[in-house]
């Protein structure tokens, strides 16, 4: 009887269905996070296709219409309209474009600067490395919002400048993590071997060290994507990010703030869009970390 049960259980546990279920539950974070990110990316790419209305079309007769399920709502405007009568859902869909563009480019630029400097500092060490890492420490000790605001005050705002500012604020994180990883990899025997085979420093750095340092950098980048999206929204909210009438989630929350008591939906939904997107990026990043670099767990 006992043996029989065990056999049944074994055959069940080894069945494809069970294994697939197990795989799914183990990778649930990655699946949910990844799906959210893919959906946001598609919305951004095909915004004109998904938007029911023109996000910039104003109609003062239709201003501040509540969401369709609330009394006084219109079926035509699912999430309602804003203070200028623009369709909120369409603006939120278009707003994803700014978040995606700013998030991805800022992460890429910050990563490029940080990884390059961290790699060079770790490889050459000495006075050069020490100076670079001191600069990294300085950047890490300045509160980032404060720094971003100070830079914007200096160079002005606008989409391109905003991306640059965000990258400048965060590159040091990549430099620190790359540097630590490079210092560790450098002591491995295969690096010594690569040198003794007559490989140039450049080749050792790019072909032997960098590929092995990629996992923690990738994990950081995915979590930084979430951070950059929040930063863009926050700076736009403060009025020093992307300027109106561009549809961005931060700016919409800021505009909705003046109407909070009579039109709660503007701020609520534009903020929810950020929460969902950032949640997706965070979940995806966590999943990457668990799979690529378990030692970083909880950092």
């Amino acid at each position, binding site marked *: 009887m006992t043996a029989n049960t065990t056999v049944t259980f074994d055959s069940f546990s080894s069945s494809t269905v069970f294994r697939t279920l197990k795989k799914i539950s183990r990778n649930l974070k990655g699946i949910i996070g990844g799906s959210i990110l893919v959906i946001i990316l598609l919305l951004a790419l095909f915004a004109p296709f998904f938007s029911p209305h023109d996000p910039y079309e104003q109609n003062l007769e239709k201003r501040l219409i509540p969401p369709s399920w609330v009394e006084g709502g219109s079926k035509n405007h699912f999430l309602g309209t804003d203070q200028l009568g623009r369709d909120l859902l369409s603006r939120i869909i278009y707003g994803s474009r700014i978040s995606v563009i700013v998030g991805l480019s800022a992460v890429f630029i910050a990563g490029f600067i940080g990884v390059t400097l961290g790699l060079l500092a770790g490889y050459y060490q000495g006075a050069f490395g020490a100076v670079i890492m*001191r*600069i990294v*420490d*300085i950047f890490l*000790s*300045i*509160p*980032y*919002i*404060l*720094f971003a*605001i*100070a*830079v*914007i*005050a*200096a*160079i002005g705002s606008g989409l391109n400048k905003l991306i640059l500012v965000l990258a400048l604020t965060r590159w040091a994180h990549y430099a620190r993590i790359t540097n630590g990883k490079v210092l560790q990899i450098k002591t491995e025997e295969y690096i010594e071997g690569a040198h003794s085979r007559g490989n140039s420093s450049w080749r050792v750095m790019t072909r032997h060290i960098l590929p092995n340092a990629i996992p923690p950098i990738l994990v950081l980048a995915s979590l930084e994507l*979430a951070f950059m999206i*929040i930063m863009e*929204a*926050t700076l736009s*909210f*403060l009025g*020093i990010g992307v300027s109106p009438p561009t549809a961005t989630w*931060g700016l919409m*929350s*800021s505009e909705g*703030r003046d109407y*909070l*008591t009579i039109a*709660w939906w503007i*701020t*609520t939904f534009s*903020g929810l869009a*950020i*929460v*969902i997107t*950032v*949640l997706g990026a*965070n*979940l995806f990043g966590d999943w990457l970390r668990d799979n690529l670099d378990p030692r970083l*767990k*909880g950092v």
Partner: protein
Amino acid sequence: MLAFVLKRLLYGLISLIGITFLVFSLLYLTGDPVQLMMPPDATVQEVEDARVRLGFDQPFLVQYFNFVGKLARFDLGDSLIRRVPVSELIKEYFPNTLLLATTAYLFALLVAVPAGVFAAIKRNSVFDLLISMVVLIGQAAPAYWVALMFVLFFSVQLGWFPTGGMGTFRHLVGPALSVGIFSMSRIARMARSSMLDVLRQDYIRTAKSQGISDRLIYFKFALKSAAIPIITLVGVEYAVLFGGSLIAETIFSWPGIGRLIVQSVYARDYPVVQGVVILFACTVFLVNLIVDLLYSYLDPRIKYGKVPS
């Protein structure tokens, strides 16, 4: 120990010099503020005289060294708009920010550490799941949105808390909550994972097998080891909290240093911006130093001044 503290102080000093240089160069780039300070009908000659009087005609490095020289005497210069010394402004506004940041911090710690530890002890329970959900959302919501949602529900709909200003304890709840929620989520998460990590260790199992009570194991043995990564994060979070206070102060009209700096940026009042950024950097540096010293208390294996083998 002393050598370690001295070394850290030296490093901190180098960083601070770097920060003053960075901040000074950045704000130098914003251009000369003299035009903004003068009445609109001032003549070219009057503007020029003011520029010479305030030292804005000097070369960059001369201006920088003047600035550092004054800084060494705790002279942060005068606000261009408010016409009072920046140190006076800081004296007036900084305590308010300190009150807000510290309340937010205590709130984050008092909720997050027990929640995280308890979630780890009761792993996979409903409570654990609930904490994980709150943590996920708390990390994804921008501070300004949390603040506005607080105003919407608790101030506008329910009327429990004021929408802004400072005075009673009830004024403090909204700003502190919106400043602290992000840090709270991160600390809770760290407390949970770090506690789980410790509970897996052999010595905990040994202690259990010896019949030592669960309470003693959790709160004396495990928590002390689990505290190290939590404390590290707590140091980092203090800097994050200061950043968050900027948003909360702006939304809740809290008369603190965060609101002061936002207003000063709009007004291009750069001595104030400089002073505040440097003040923030010093505070963050001090907190991190204290955190480093706490380590050696919590983990006797960490000895400063000796190279770990």
